[in-house]
């Protein structure tokens, strides 16, 4: 419902953006206007983006309303998109202009296989290149070259979720409380032996608390294991497994809106919560068929307007500081200064730790 409301707000607001001039300092305005004209001449931009219906409706509508340029939105699983892009490139075919994806896809496929164009030099919109508009005091590029993959979201993730008829927030003070024998067979997890949420969570626990903790939690506690996000959330909602480590935030939000007794557990004394960017990274594909429209889109999605639309549609915390996120986000998921969160989207953590722990989980769980 929040997403629908956000989408409605976005679409209602679109005509106003279309009328407003783009604020830009002297000198760069000409360059910007040339880019807009060239992008309009190309007619459309093709983006590879998450298979999310809210985003798929909000982003193209807002971009078209702003610039009159169509967006071909290709949503799909990143593993399939990667196979498709790789085959296209081997045949010298280039169909995608811009990628919006998670760090795993960006780092292990697009970046590693050199499919990306440096984005930093293409960002020219004044409010985008202005460091003071970003929470970190600079544009947050994720890659070691500091120029390919721009992080757009930074959201606090819950440690786990509970069904409050069977488990109370007061039952949990430290991470170790999850190992209490009374929760044996009462915890659900996303399968940690395959890449994705499950292996990310396992890697996080492994890094923070060590192998013994992970073995006790993921093996000895005999958790319910699933791969379907809806199945895990339904288990939580029905109390079949009243503690869910694998549930996804937007799914649990839907449950709460339906009045079901579920709660997120964010902060424990030794477990301050995680940070993630979800699918909030943007990169430019090289050999883009619509290079100017691609650059325009990248500038727009990193701007206050574009990122505002994207953050609202995904209910994520933007990395810009000029978007009123408190108007559409619950306070728990907005990072607080001074808290030592665990960033699950770190470069090394993504490229090496996650995969190492995933393989170790296969051994531990004998799967």
């Amino acid at each position, binding site marked *: 419902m929040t997403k629908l409301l956000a989408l409605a707000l976005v679409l209602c607001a679109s005509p106003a953006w279309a009328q407003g001039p783009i604020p830009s300092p002297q000198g760069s305005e000409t360059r910007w206007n040339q880019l807009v004209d060239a992008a309009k001449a190309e007619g459309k931009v*093709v983006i590879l983006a998450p*298979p*999310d*219906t809210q985003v*798929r*409706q909000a982003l193209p509508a807002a971009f078209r309303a702003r610039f009159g340029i169509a967006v*071909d*939105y*290709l*949503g*799909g*699983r*990143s*593993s*399939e998109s*990667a*196979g*498709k892009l*790789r*085959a*296209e490139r*081997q*045949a010298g*075919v280039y*169909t995608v202009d811009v990628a919006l994806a998670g760090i*795993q*896809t960006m780092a*292990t*496929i697009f970046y*590693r*296989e*050199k*499919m990306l164009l440096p984005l930093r030099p293409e960002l020219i919109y004044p409010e985008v290149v202005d460091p003071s508009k970003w929470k970190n005091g600079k544009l947050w590029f994720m890659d070691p070259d500091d120029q390919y993959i721009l992080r757009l979201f930074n959201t606090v993730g819950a440690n786990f979720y509970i069904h409050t008829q069977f488990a109370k927030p007061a039952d949990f003070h430290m991470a170790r409380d999850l190992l209490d024998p009374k929760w044996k067979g009462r915890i659900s997890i996303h*399968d940690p*032996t*395959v*890449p*994705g949420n499950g292996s990310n969570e396992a890697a996080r626990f492994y890094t923070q608390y060590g192998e013994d903790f992970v073995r006790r939690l993921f093996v000895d506690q005999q958790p*319910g*294991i*699933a*791969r*379907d*996000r*809806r*199945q895990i*959330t*339904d288990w939580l*909602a*029905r109390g*079949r497994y009243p503690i869910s480590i694998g549930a*996804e935030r*937007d*799914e649990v939000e839907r*449950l709460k809106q*339906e*009045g*079901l007794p579920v709660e997120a557990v964010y902060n424990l004394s030794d477990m301050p919560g995680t940070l993630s960017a979800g699918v909030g990274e943007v990169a430019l594909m090289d050999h883009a068929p619509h290079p100017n429209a691609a650059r325009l889109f990248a500038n727009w999605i990193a701007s206050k307007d574009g990122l505002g639309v994207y953050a609202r549609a995904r209910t994520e915390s933007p990395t810009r500081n000029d978007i009123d996120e408190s108007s559409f986000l619950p306070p728990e998921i907005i990072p607080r200064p001074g808290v030592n969160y665990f960033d699950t989207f770190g470069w090394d953590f993504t490229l090496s730790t996650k995969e190492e722990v995933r393989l170790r989980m296969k051994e531990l769980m*004998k*799967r």
Partner: protein
Amino acid sequence: MSQLAAAFARSPKLRGLPAVELSVLLFFVTVMGLPILFLLFGSFNIAPPGQPPVYGLGNWLRAFAEPQTLSALWMSFAFSMVRLVPSLALSVTFAWLIARTDMPGGHALEFLCWFAYFVPDFPLTLAWILLLDPNFGFLNNIAQVLPFVNGPLFNPYSFWGIVWVHLGTGGIWLNVMLLTPIFRRLGATLEEAARVAGANTFTALLRITFPVLSPMIIAIAVLSFIKGLESFNTELLLGLPAGIYVYGTRIYDYLRQEPPAYGEATALGSVFLLVLAALAVFYRRYFQGKRKFTVVTGQGYSTLRIKLGKWRYVALGGFVLWFAVMMVLPLTFLVIGSFMRRYGFFDIKSPFTVAHWQALFSDPLFLGSLQNSLEIAGITAFLGVLLYSLVGYLLASRRLKAPALLEFFCWLPWVIPGILMSLGLLWVFLATPLRGILYGTVWGIALALTIHDSPVSTQAFKSAFLQLGPDLEEAARVTGASWRYTYRRILLPLVAPVAVTVAMLNFGTALTSISTPVLLYSAESRPLSILLLEYSFNGEIERAAALGLLITAIICAMMLVGRRFGLQMTNPRRQEARPA
């Protein structure tokens, strides 16, 4: 391509092949053989993605070195075998009852089987969870009121739970669809002769009917077995919580890795090729040199139905009961689910809504995707009939020089996991000069779907042509008809019911298939099934259920038209009235 053709022409064994056979073989080598060759070749590339290729056995060793691979393979064999027996027995019985007996309502029941086959699997499996879950399952809750029940009676998260759900989703209904027209074509002469010789209905069925129809029955058994080996979706939902892993899941795991491990997935998938090769050898040996399947000749033909007497109502009752339990029950939950705020949650505030249907129809991509889907399905149905009627005829004619090769190619698309086959086709499409026509267009997707339908379409046509006696062609030839004229005016009309079945099946499969178009679509050619995938991926099960039901309704509408057309051509009453 021209080099390939030249190589074929130079081969002494193939030099004498008729032009038609050579053309069909070339086509199959290109669209079925090449993708698999690409995949197999690629599976030996052990270089990291994006790096220059380095060849070795690393992917294969890694895939088969995992200790769980063999146990998963064994589990898949167990599932496939256990499912096969009841599935085949029930589908043969149902098809026989519909087509060969006077059981009332046969046509309506056949229609219901068609309908059931195209109800989407995923939400149907969720419906079975709602019915059977040990903690909250509807049927378990009802069972608790029984005096002798102390715990949950059913558990879908188990070996037998998975077998049960599979029996209700897909397999049996498809088999009935394929077998019924074949049974319908069966002349009653043989059965009447058996009865005159003193055999009762059961004996005639076992000794005459089933052996005569064995090409299709065995083909369906092979199809079911291979599909059973590949199955993993239901096992992911129901097997994982119980620690049940199947072989398809292991392939799926490699495909879903980031970056996807196509090499390892292809290595594991090659086991299916071995199974296929073994089955193909058995299949050919079984039928080699025998021509005992002819049931339609030029010397009199009758399709009089067997009278079951009072048992006709028992048969009807049994069929209806099976359909009610296996389809109506979960389908009711599925339909209700599409109108629920949250699928299966009856105790939340205001549980019912039409919002998901509204959201579906107001999706900006809906109309365009609907148009694409109808175009793709229409082309697929047409291409399928055109191509596979010819292939089926060639295989049944027994005049081929390389029948085993052609037969093998026909089976290939089902022994390679859908997404891998799609990847192989993607490579082929991109490598051909026809790239502009095939890649990212409805034509390319339709061609891929036509290829995917090869096993079932070919076997259906082949079985139908095997039923026709050679005297029909000979008589036409004696009276001066050309082969083309004979094929068009005599043979095709006789197999028209099967052609309609294949067309409708291909149409329906094209509307529901996800794994085939997922790598081949573009923004301009996105079909409804990709929308369905997006909804499911996004956790919007209710909207996915609504779309799934809508697709089923479209297929039903087409079926009504198609069946009317097909039944007109094979109206038993009309045929019974013909002089012998």
